[in-house]
């Protein structure tokens, strides 16, 4: 089916999320929509899917104008969508999730589970998915949950499939499988709109690329375009995609985590006998798919999660004996993974957020009296140093963009003398400019001799920052490898394959993205 957008505009208050967007997706085409976080890609797709109604413009399917009053209409017209945050109900089974909204029923509205199961099995075998129709969604790994979403769309005869950042949660090998699925669907005549900000993927699979920036279409490109060209189209200026850094001057071992085990509230192991150490002036990056124990590792080091066994030692001092406050006072800098819930308090001013973990100490407090002047001055000085774009430091922090909020968090944590820096997902949801800045700041901190633990699910970030890479899978450290390890090997390790075996397997089967990378390199050399 052919999907066409003509002059689609969507405003939220005074903010124009989509401005006169024109887009044509031909039948059986994989069309990539490339843009930074916040460029308006998801808004556009939610408009096509009927979740938002456009303020101006038209959507045409096979040259017929259509209007959707809700996702139900869009689905009926043959549009399927796999959302970035899966729209699955954790406590439902796979079958229940797939049929929801389109339930086959017997008399009196009783569900026909048998018919529903058969449908799931039929679609899942047609595309070679290995999905148990009776499994609970919350027990499935993210890759399988994504396949459930695809089955859901296909079970409703989707002719246009929208995939919103589908690779964000996948290992490189799972991404590879997704690419194979997308090609299979394309063969079957399904049009695919593929939303991403990852340049490598776009070049490997798209037939055509549309780049949007700040809600506007800024250009079209072909998969043959170079990454640098795509990046500058996407960001609007020349950018360097890698951060230059000197090899670190590493000193003696500073942080030692030995045999650390953490249980969740239900008594399941979430961190399984983890041991690692970090030297002064070194960045240890922890790679892994979300939810494999990285969060628990950072929280155990901070002390907001109880360790069932094992030790955490910083410069010979047993951290487990200290409270969170004492750990922070001992020089632990901590950037939490979810800025909005754990990093800042939205209604507080920038100044107040800046002193959140130092408010009761000199120079910000004398006895029980807070020193507002000292707080403001420090906040102004540090926000200037970190280039936070804002009105005044008295504005609520919620008025800042994600990137600038994150800079405030970094400014807060780095304005103290640190003996250990822990950052979880430091650039999640940020634009390229902010990412560059955050990366440079972390490297500067390292060069001051601070041991740094950076947890990231983005392989690009891991490869950019790491001096060494630890890969986590299901609460265990699969291996700690040098920074120059290939993506394919890291990807296999992220699925639990031990380092050596991963090397062998990666040498034997290269992923589609890996191949595309090599081709591109050869071309550049030639």
């Amino acid at each position: 089916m052919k999907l066409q957008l003509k002059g689609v505009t969507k405003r939220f208050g005074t903010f124009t999320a989509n401005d006169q967007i024109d887009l044509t997706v031909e039948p059986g085409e994989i069309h990539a929509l490339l843009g930074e976080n916040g460029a308006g890609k998801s808004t556009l797709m939610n408009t096509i899917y009927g979740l938002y109604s456009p303020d101006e413009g038209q959507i045409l399917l096979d040259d017929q104008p259509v209007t959707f009053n809700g996702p139900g209409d869009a689905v009926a017209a043959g549009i399927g969508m796999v959302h970035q945050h899966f729209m699955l109900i954790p406590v439902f089974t796979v079958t229940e999730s797939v049929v929801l909204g389109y339930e086959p029923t017997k008399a009196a509205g009783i569900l026909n589970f048998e018919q529903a199961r058969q449908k799931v099995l039929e679609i899942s075998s047609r595309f070679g998915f290995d999905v148990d129709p009776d499994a609970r969604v919350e027990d499935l790994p993210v890759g399988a949950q994504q396949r459930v979403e695809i089955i859901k769309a296909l079970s409703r005869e989707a002719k246009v499939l929208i995939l919103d950042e589908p690779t964000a949660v996948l290992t490189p090998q799972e991404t590879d499988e997704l690419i194979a699925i997308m090609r299979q669907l394309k063969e079957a005549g399904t049009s695919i709109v593929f939303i991403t900000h990852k340049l490598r993927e776009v070049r490997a699979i798209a037939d055509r690329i549309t780049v949007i920036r700040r809600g506007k279409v800024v250009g079209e490109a072909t998969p043959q375009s170079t990454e640098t060209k795509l990046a500058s189209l996407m960001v609007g200026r020349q950018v360097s995609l890698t951060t230059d850094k000197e090899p670190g001057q590493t000193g003696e071992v500073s942080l030692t985590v030995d045999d650390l085990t953490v249980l969740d509230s239900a008594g399941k192991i979430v961190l399984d006998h983890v041991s690692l150490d970090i030297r002064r002036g070194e960045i240890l990056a922890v790679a892994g798919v979300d939810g494999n124990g990285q969060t628990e590792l950072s929280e155990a080091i901070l002390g907001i999660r109880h360790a069932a066994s094992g030790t955490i030692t910083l410069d010979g001092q047993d951290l487990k004996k200290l409270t969170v406050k004492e750990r922070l006072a001992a020089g632990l800098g901590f950037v939490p993974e979810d800025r909005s819930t754990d990093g800042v308090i939205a209604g507080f001013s920038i100044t107040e957020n800046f002193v959140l973990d130092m408010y009761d100490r000199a120079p910000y407090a004398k006895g029980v009296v807070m020193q507002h002047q000292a707080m403001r001055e420090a906040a102004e000085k540090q926000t200037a140093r970190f280039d936070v774009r804002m009105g005044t430091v008295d504005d609520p922090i919620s008025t800042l963009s994600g990137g600038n909020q994150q800079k405030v968090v970094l400014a807060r944590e780095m304005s103290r003398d640190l003996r250990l820096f822990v950052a979880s997902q430091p650039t999640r949801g940020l634009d390229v400019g902010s990412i560059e800045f955050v990366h440079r700041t972390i490297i500067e901190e390292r060069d001051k001799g601070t041991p740094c633990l950076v947890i990231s699910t983005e392989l690009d970030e891991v490869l950019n920052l790491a001096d060494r890479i630890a890969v986590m899978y299901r609460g265990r450290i699969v291996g700690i490898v040098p920074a120059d390890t290939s993506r394919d090997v890291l990807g296999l390790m992220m699925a639990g394959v031990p380092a050596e075996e991963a090397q062998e397997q990666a040498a034997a089967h290269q992923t589609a993205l890996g191949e595309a990378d090599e081709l591109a390199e050869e071309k550049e050399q030639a």
Partner: protein
Amino acid sequence: MSTETVAVHAEPLEEASSTLKPVNLKFPITYAVMAMVALGVFALFSPAGAVTRFRLGAPTDFIEIPLAEVPAAPTNWVLGAALAALAVLAFVRAYQRKRLGRWHPVLFGVLFVAAFLVWAGADRGAVIPLVTMLTGALALSVPLIFGAMCGLVGERTGVINIAIEGQLLAGAFLAAVAASVFVNAYVGLVAAPIAGALVGALLVVFAVKYQVNQIIVGVVLNVLVIGLTSFLFSTVLTQNSQLWNARQQLPRLPVPVLSEIPIIGPVLFNQTILVYLMYVIVALLYVFLFRSRWGLRVRAVGEHPKAADTVGINVNRTRTINVIFAGAIAGLGGAFFTVGQGLAFGQEMSAGQGFIALAAMILGRWNPLGAMFAALLFGFSTSLGNTLSTIGTPVPSEVLLMLPYIITIFAVAGFVGRVRPPAANGEPYVK
């Protein structure tokens, strides 16, 4: 394609190995304390040679069942020993980090209550009327069960309903008035759900449409209904109580054969149509919540409204319809206070039952059957307190009347294990 790497994903996360999992002694210690009470108080202080008499039959029984007599002290030593054994078993299983079956707390509770009754009734001269006590338990449970069903339908769609109390009261009021005006108790049964649904509709307007904090709306609605019914009671109903507030009672309809079963027959199957309706509603909700299209959609809306929206389910409409429907259930339950028992309407006659119904819903884990059993437990503990205060026991009756509320606090505090409410419970859905 490297399919072999994907296979690794399939195994579920493993349970913590036995040395790491903390030993949970909360339950074993509770059991041990209760067993010690049974041995140290019920057995030791049962007067030697005393007997406790139970009446197993109902006054209406076709065949007279003789009184059951048990020797108090020996019986309680046996029961106490059994309770101690169960407590020891609980300790053993806790240290093995294994779970106990559901039979364990049920058996423990039954034995403990039996030991208590034997001790309380020993040498009293009075007879413990078992059937009367159980009938009372069911009667006290009926509004709780209706209320809990209302609460769980609402919360399964994601709307917290604190206004059950008000819905019960509104139902009781309108049932009494309608039955009185038409001189027919059944008209009251038709009117009661309308009153409950109207309160539900008000809840929807504020909680779903205007996204006001649902707990606050609920509390305000309760106050509103109490105020409104009290006002109408003192101005209209008492002026001409013959017309507006005359007593009407639903007749008892004994089910043939079933009502002849000893003990449980008269308790369960010699009831009014309202109680039979309750059985049907609980059974239907249980089946439909988990097996029907309606149930699937209701649960989806309460767990993840956005996901439901993306498959074309109208979240706010689903919530609206079901909260109003749930209000009708609670209103029907309110009819039990008046026409169900043949009483005239009295001010604030729901007396906090709506809140206990919420506790029953939580204790029953948002499951119709679970909530029903929880409500029966609360009803039984109240009935036990009533019975004991009439036969006169060593325990002050005030303490016994506290019993259901103590049980409620423990229940709501999550003492019975982890409870998992619907994920989007209480959260308004805004696109």
